């Protein structure tokens, strides 16, 4: 299944915020997590993640920190802020509303709402 480009773009922000809500992370790890979560169905162009992360930083949803882990190279870590948590909660409400509406017109599909844990 190929997921529509606009849908990928729209889901990118809540996905990244939700992943960062699990704990601080860095670019490549975030992308790996997206792949794992979607079973490889969500195809992102890797580089595009970074402008998105920088936008989240500009809006104050995440803070960043350059650190050098013991075994690796210097890299930038992203951490969710309280404002980011609020934005995530807001996004969740929006997506739940959208999926609930879709659920109602797609009888018997049972799908998206359970996926969001809101059934």
């Amino acid at each position, binding site marked *: 299944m190929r997921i529509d480009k606009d849908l990928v773009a729209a889901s990118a922000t809540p996905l990244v915020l939700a992943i960062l809500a699990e704990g601080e992370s860095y*670019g490549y790890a975030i992308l790996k997590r997206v792949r794992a979560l979607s079973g490889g169905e969500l195809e992102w*162009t*890797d*580089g595009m993640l*970074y*402008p998105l992360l920088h936008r989240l930083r500009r*809006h*104050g949803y995440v803070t960043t920190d350059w650190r050098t882990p013991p075994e690796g190279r210097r890299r930038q870590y992203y951490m969710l802020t309280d404002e980011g948590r609020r934005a995530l909660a807001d996004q969740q409400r929006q997506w739940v509303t959208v999926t609930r509406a879709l659920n109602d017109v797609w009888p018997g599909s049972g799908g998206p709402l359970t996926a969001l844990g809101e059934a």
Partner: protein
Amino acid sequence: MESAESQIAEWRAYVATAPGLNGHDVDELEDHLRHQIADLNAVGLTADEAFLVAVKRMGELDSLSREFAREHSGRLWKQLILRDEDEPARKSSDWFETLVFAVAAAVVVQIARLAAHFPEEEPTWLARNSSMFVLPFLAGYFARRRQLDARRLLLTAAPFVLAALMVNLYPYREDSATDVLVALHLPVVLWFAVAYPYMGGTVGSHERRMDFVRFTGEWFIYYVLIALGGAVLTALTALILEPTGIDVEWLPEWVLPSGAAGAVIVAAWLVEWKQRVVENMAPVLTMLFTPLFAVMLAGAAVVYAVTGLGGAFDRELLSVFDALLLVVLALVLYGMSARDPSTSPDWMDRIQLVAVVSALVLDVMVLGAMIARIGELGFTPNRTAALGLNLVLLVNLAGAAWLAARFLTRRSRLHRLERWQTTYLPVFALWACSVVLMLPPLFAFT
């Protein structure tokens, strides 16, 4: 392994050339690429294969660079690179269009000068309207460049028409003070009116407002440069012609007004198209002058705090102080618009805070002196305008100082400070508007 490293180095060098990406971005992307290659190696791909797949997954550099530039519009003007995507390439008739507008402004100014018999006579309508002869052409120039639709064209023209009517229909008395105030404030009003076509009508966008601040600063730099060059050229022409016995008395009064008017458009064109040059120059200039002004302001604040105000604050000094405060505000605004918002607070931010706080102290003292004077002698147009300007500045500086202090102690982000300034811009516009439109009738055009 040797070849993998050199491949990565080559890729890095290639990515670093893309506009919109800075060194940190490239570091981040390189780290990503290395991870990806390592993971692909681990599942059995050869070094070459892993590199190719990893680069492919990273995405095309063009679209990546565009995406970065879209996010970091401050680093590089987005309209410059976004244009190659959305709009057809600029024609070479571009400079011709600029020239038409510049010449039109120059001719109109000249006609006005001849009609007023300047400099033999100095009718007040000439000073009052001087910006009206030039800035509509700048607005028209941007309206054309941004290809505004009919509704936006009307909205662009409206403030100019309205201002032209009000400024010229008001029955100013002889030697009226409001007349002079209007002459001083109308350029500010019209400059804000130019912002509308400049932003292509999207005046609500804070990013575009910051772009306009940046444009204003860079336009000013270019304008000063053109003025300096023009002055040298005029002086040399006069000197060269002198021995021939040709009368050069007429030269300044023809060349100066037209040159000054045409340069307004040409400077705007230079800002738009020679962006990179100023991009390097402007941060250097702010970095040079912000500390100097900070020292001067802090010194002045201390001296005045110690010696007290006394009779020192006469009218001329008050206007000098107002000019000084405006310069500080301009430096801070412009420095902010040229700053990379993603970096942490550094010494420049501290110096800027010193400048803002000193300016704030001075502003409070000026206000105190002004209120005392008004309490003693009552309101006049000049005092009202000065009081209003100082109040507007006071609120702005206080907000800026508070947010800058929070930013320095890492309790707030630079974004907030930028927002404060871009949100505040309409206040300046409204104040200038009310001086032009409301002050004259309030004081019965005296």
